[in-house]
């Protein structure tokens, strides 16, 4: 156990580095870290006693602790214990002040802490609820604006493939658009996620340290390129080059229905749009994955290596399990961007309204691109119809996120806090 005089903040950072592997992999009552500090603060009471006293008091005294207790997840026990500890120990405001203090569950000191805490908690909670209200308003707005158009629609909104919202009578449906949106986003993510994780691993683990930060910066550069530029680049630079690759895929992998163009020719296809989208979401996923991998306690990695693991085995056993929820979250952000991307897709895709699995054919359209293309000249019904399609995108994002959350929920056990 260390004995050097540390300020609380110092103790904090050191905690990252000095964490032991067992302590982090299985959430248990962290007797060591909590005991460490009272040891320095007071010499009168032994650490063990302080904790047990606090625990016995926690139910009666601390409201905050009680709130924490109500969580289902097991690692919250640690938090509640330490919250209880906090309640029973007076605040040590001055850093580096090592004079022994008395530990007493002074009732007079509590309301002061409690008030500030309650205020802060309520502030954050208000922000959270404010966000819900905002989202509610947006949803309400979308529904209200979409309603007239949907009731005027002569076709089936979910199965019609054409978009004749400005015609009389209006006949429009979201089927082809939704298909194109999902197809292009899925292909984009299938390309982007492995590459992004590879980049993140390269930066955090493989690259020399000095090079790593420079490289991280280079990847961020991709995120800084505005989407209209990706669109122009995709249309003017990539598309002409890409035809060769598409022909090649068609020639040699045409037996896979996906790559078959039949009688037609290749062109500005869903595949091209997916590649542009993949390049756009790549930096988002890579940057966040990198941050997540950087948070993997160095001790985990070193422990794995010390046990004789190869670098890959270290990644597999220490880095990936720890970072997986974060990578999934990052991918969801990327998916959101890919599905909602407007201008780049509108520039690249020829916007046809049909459902086709032949991703190399010059065809396809997405919801967001259709909004951008059609909004300018749309009449009232037309605008409502476009907003209705935006609402569909909203719902689809919801469903996809539900699935992602279910996946993350299974992976809770490895992360530092409830993932």
């Amino acid at each position, binding site marked *: 156990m260390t004995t050097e005089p540390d300020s609380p903040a110092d*103790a904090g*950072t050191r905690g990252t580095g000095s964490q032991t592997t067992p302590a982090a992999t299985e959430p248990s009552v962290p007797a060591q870290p*909590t005991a460490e500090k009272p040891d320095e603060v007071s010499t009168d009471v032994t650490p063990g006693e302080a904790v047990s006293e606090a625990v016995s008091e926690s139910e009666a005294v601390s409201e905050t602790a009680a709130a924490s207790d109500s969580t289902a997840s097991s690692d919250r026990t640690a*938090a509640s214990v*330490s919250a209880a*500890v906090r309640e029973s*120990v007076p605040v040590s405001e001055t850093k580096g002040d090592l004079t022994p203090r008395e530990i007493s569950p002074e009732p007079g000191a509590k309301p002061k802490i409690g008030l500030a805490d309650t205020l802060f908690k309520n502030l954050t909670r208000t922000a959270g609820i404010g966000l819900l209200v905002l989202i509610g308003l947006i949803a309400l707005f979308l529904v209200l604006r979409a309603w007239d158009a949907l009731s005027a629609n002569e076709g089936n909104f979910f199965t019609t493939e054409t978009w004749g919202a400005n015609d009389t009578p209006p006949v429009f449906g979201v089927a082809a658009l939704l298909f194109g949106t999902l197809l292009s986003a899925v292909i984009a993510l299938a390309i982007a996620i492995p590459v992004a994780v590879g980049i993140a691993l390269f930066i955090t683990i493989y690259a020399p340290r000095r090079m790593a930060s420079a490289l991280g910066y280079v*990847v961020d550069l991709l995120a*800084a390129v505005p989407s209209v530029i990706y669109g122009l680049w995709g249309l003017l630079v990539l598309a002409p080059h890409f035809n060769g690759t598409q022909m090649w895929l068609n020639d040699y992998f045409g037996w896979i229905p996906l790559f078959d163009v039949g009688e037609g020719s290749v062109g500005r296809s869903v595949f091209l749009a997916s590649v542009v989208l993949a390049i756009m979401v790549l930096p988002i996923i890579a940057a966040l994955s990198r941050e997540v991998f950087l948070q993997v306690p160095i001790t985990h990695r070193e422990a794995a290596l010390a046990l004789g693991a190869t670098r890959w085995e270290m990644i597999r056993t220490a880095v990936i399990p720890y970072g997986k929820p974060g990578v999934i979250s990052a991918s969801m952000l990327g998916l959101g961007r890919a599905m909602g991307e407007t201008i780049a897709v509108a520039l690249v895709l020829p916007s046809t309204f049909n459902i086709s699995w032949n991703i190399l054919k010059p065809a396809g359209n997405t919801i967001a691109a259709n909004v951008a293309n059609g909004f300018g000249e749309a009449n009232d019904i037309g605008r409502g119809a476009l907003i209705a399609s935006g609402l569909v995108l909203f719902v689809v994002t919801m469903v996809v996120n539900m699935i992602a959350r279910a996946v993350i929920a299974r992976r809770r056990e490895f992360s530092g806090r409830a993932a």
Partner: protein
Amino acid sequence: MTATTMPAAPAGHQSLNLRGQTLRTPVLGAIAVGAVALTALLYLVTSIHSRIQFVLIVLLLFSIGQTVASVLVEGARRARDRLVTTLVYGSFLLALIPLVAVLVAVIERGAKRLDMDFLTHSMRGIGARDAGGGIYHAIIGTLEQVGLASLMAVPFGLLVAVYLVEYGTGRISRVISFFVDVLTGLPSIIAGLFVLGFWILALGQPFTGFAGSLALTILMVPVVVRSAEEMLKLVPDELREASYALGVARWRTILKIVVPTALPGIVTGVMLAVARVAGETAPLLLTVFGDNSINMNPFDGEQSALPLYIYSQAGQPQQVAIDRAWAAALTLIIIIMLLNLIARFVASRAKVK
């Protein structure tokens, strides 16, 4: 085992060769040459000419060859390790291709017009075929709109993230966290429509830079919340507990320990959000309208913005306008990179020591 003990041999993977054999560099070189040669042959036969594809096939062949050789010489574990190393390096190189291609395209086309004259003049009084003009008004607009949006979105998003991670229990926080994800998929034009419908039409406000920043805020918040939430979650509980054990109040622990620890990650998230909204065209088209003259006040009158400028100039038939669009794009990228640099520097300074 105490917490402070360091592993003795960090180079443990080198002792793996129980058979005492490693793949020598010449062998790897030979595999690489073979891969290139085979790909070249493949290209002659199939007669397709894409350089990117060439690189991809070489990579594929090289990793196959290397894995086979490594399995024979070094054993399966080492072979797997080598394969992953190759794939990781490969994916990095792969990502560099579009990056370099996009940047080269932008720099090549943008450098033509990018000079002080361009940076310090507006488009006022520039006719359709005139070569002059600049982007000063658009830079001001973008800086003010994105700045205002960040001022609103970052504190708001951080508070929400803190609530979700530190206080959030039960249904409300699950619902909030869920809908934040949903908000990430909101097409930007819908955010613009929302502000147009509520702020401008229903509340009778004019087109202003501020209206634009409201739309950008809606787009920024979910990205800030999501990335900050992810980073806060990764702060080890031991830190919080150590702080609580010292009797530090919860809110102080959050502000002084938890948030600063996660700060570099949060800054990355914020910069991603800034980078994303700084390039948004569609919501601005509906809310700030655009302007050819300089308007310093984001709360009064129409403003321009760089993405709007790029969009409108790129759609013109004249080459002079297209040149201006590329130069503006280059400027936008440079501005975001500078902001990124400053933010990172500040974050590294503010980090707990």
